[in-house]
């Protein structure tokens, strides 16, 4: 095989630190190759209007390969590889290069909210390319002497431009199962906000689905991970495919914060302020990332002032953490019920160190040797 440098996209996000790329994201780049071939054919047809058909072997001997991950958050080195039986790169390579430019240009147009040039049937590939990107992650493409950023929001705009009826995305949804039809291998689920949809029941997750259905009236929730289908108004239509169904802890933090996010201003008999939804997402991600998995999960409640109060009852000690979502500060108070002593700290949850100190303070109570955490607070 002969190889030629073709594209060096840079992946940004927590998952790509240490120059690594999750295997699940590689399938997105496989879609990129499909899109590239189809757009290259389109460019060929534009130049050869006299030909009705594309050569049957148009893409033969040409393929995209991942040659390595270079320095940077995770910089992919994608090369165009040609069959070693070819003495020179095939003529069609120029259409692949034009297709690359068209794809990056489509991303740039979307980022600038300008009209698309690519026909919608090619834009529809963005339904599958970029599907594995999570919130906060992006891919940076070189574009002439500048770069363009492709992220989940830009992807949504591109899909809208493609005017498809439905689009898909990878999702992890917390849901209750209210119905299962074993004869037709399907089940129906309900999200915290009341949205209901249907999915296929497969043997690999049949047991957790049926168990969750039995626990419906006791508030049993499961985490369903897979690819969801949405309509053009972003409404959930159902799961296209499911990878995992996992029972959730009754104190699951994300689920509880989703429930709190449904509150409206005035929720406390006309007076309570509803917590900001973006800030609740932030808190959910922070808990996921920083809260020690060995510690008991907290009970979570909204506060009248628009914050969140986490509480633990640990070995005769009542602990509260009143979180101000606006400035990310948290007032920690632990009351030992047997001797009435209290311990108080202020933690800064916007810093990793704030979470470390919280974990340490809780661990000290768990171990019943309550004293000031070793690090300075």
């Amino acid at each position, binding site marked *: 095989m002969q190889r030629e440098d073709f594209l060096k996209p840079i992946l940004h996000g927590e998952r790509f630190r240490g120059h690594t790329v999750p295997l699940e994201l590689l399938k997105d780049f496989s879609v990129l190759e499909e899109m590239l071939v189809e757009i290259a054919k389109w460019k060929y047809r534009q130049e050869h209007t006299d030909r009705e058909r594309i050569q049957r072997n148009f893409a033969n001997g040409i393929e995209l390969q991942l040659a390595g991950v270079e320095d940077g958050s995770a910089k992919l080195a994608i090369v165009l590889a040609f069959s070693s039986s070819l003495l020179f790169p095939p003529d069609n390579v120029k259409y692949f290069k034009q297709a690359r430019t068209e794809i990056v240009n489509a991303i740039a147009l979307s980022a600038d909210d300008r009209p698309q040039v690519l026909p919608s049937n090619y834009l529809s590939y963005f339904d599958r390319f970029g599907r594995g990107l999570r919130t906060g992650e992006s891919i940076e493409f070189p574009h002439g002497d500048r770069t363009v950023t492709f992220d989940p929001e830009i992807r949504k705009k591109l899909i809208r431009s493609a005017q498809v009826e439905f689009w898909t995305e990878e999702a992890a949804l917390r849901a209750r199962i209210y119905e299962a039809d074993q004869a037709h291998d399907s089940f129906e689920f309900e999200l915290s906000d009341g949205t209901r949809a249907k999915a296929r029941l497969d043997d690999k997750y049949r047991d957790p689905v049926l168990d969750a259905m039995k626990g419906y009236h006791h*508030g049993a929730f499961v985490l369903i991970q897979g690819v969801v289908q949405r309509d053009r108004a972003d409404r959930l239509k159902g799961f296209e495919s499911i990878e995992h169904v996992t029972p959730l802890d009754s104190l699951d933090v994300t689920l509880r914060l989703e429930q709190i996010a449904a509150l409206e201003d005035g*929720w406390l008999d006309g*007076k309570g302020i509803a917590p900001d939804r973006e800030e609740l997402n932030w808190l959910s991600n922070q808990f996921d990332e920083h809260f020690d998995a060995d510690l008991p999960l907290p009970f979570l409640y909204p506060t009248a002032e628009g914050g969140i109060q986490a509480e633990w009852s640990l070995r005769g000690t009542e602990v509260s953490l009143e979180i101000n979502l606006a400035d990310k500060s948290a007032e920690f108070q632990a009351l030992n*019920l047997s001797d009435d002593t209290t311990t108080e700290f202020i933690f800064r949850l916007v810093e990793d160190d704030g979470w470390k100190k919280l974990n340490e303070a809780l661990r000290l109570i768990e171990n019943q040797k309550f004293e000031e955490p070793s690090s300075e607070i």
Partner: protein
Amino acid sequence: MKSDTLLLRQIHPGFVQNGRPTSQAFRPTLKDESQLSVYNGTLITAKASWHHYTETLSLESAGVMALSHAECVSEQLKVIEDPIPFPEHCSIDFSGLKKSEIDKKSKKLAAFAKARDWLFVR
């Protein structure tokens, strides 16, 4: 008021997770102006207080928990019998306390109430 008089507290549904109330339910909120409203349990049952609260006053309650007068006194909290806006109304007075003291006392009151368990659940 006798020391064993139960003071009935309505718990807002937002202040309950998996049946556990937050200690916030036992401290005054912005609307309470340092006074925690309760019903005098010698004058009304837990169930009747819930009906009064949710139907006559049109306020939300997931159920009723209680503190005794003696428990409030043990936390140096004065209980005021103030039959306004209804005859069974009493207030637990948190005025003059710093926030950290209010938080501490609310934890103690919540612990007393949880030990007694729910008196009525909707």
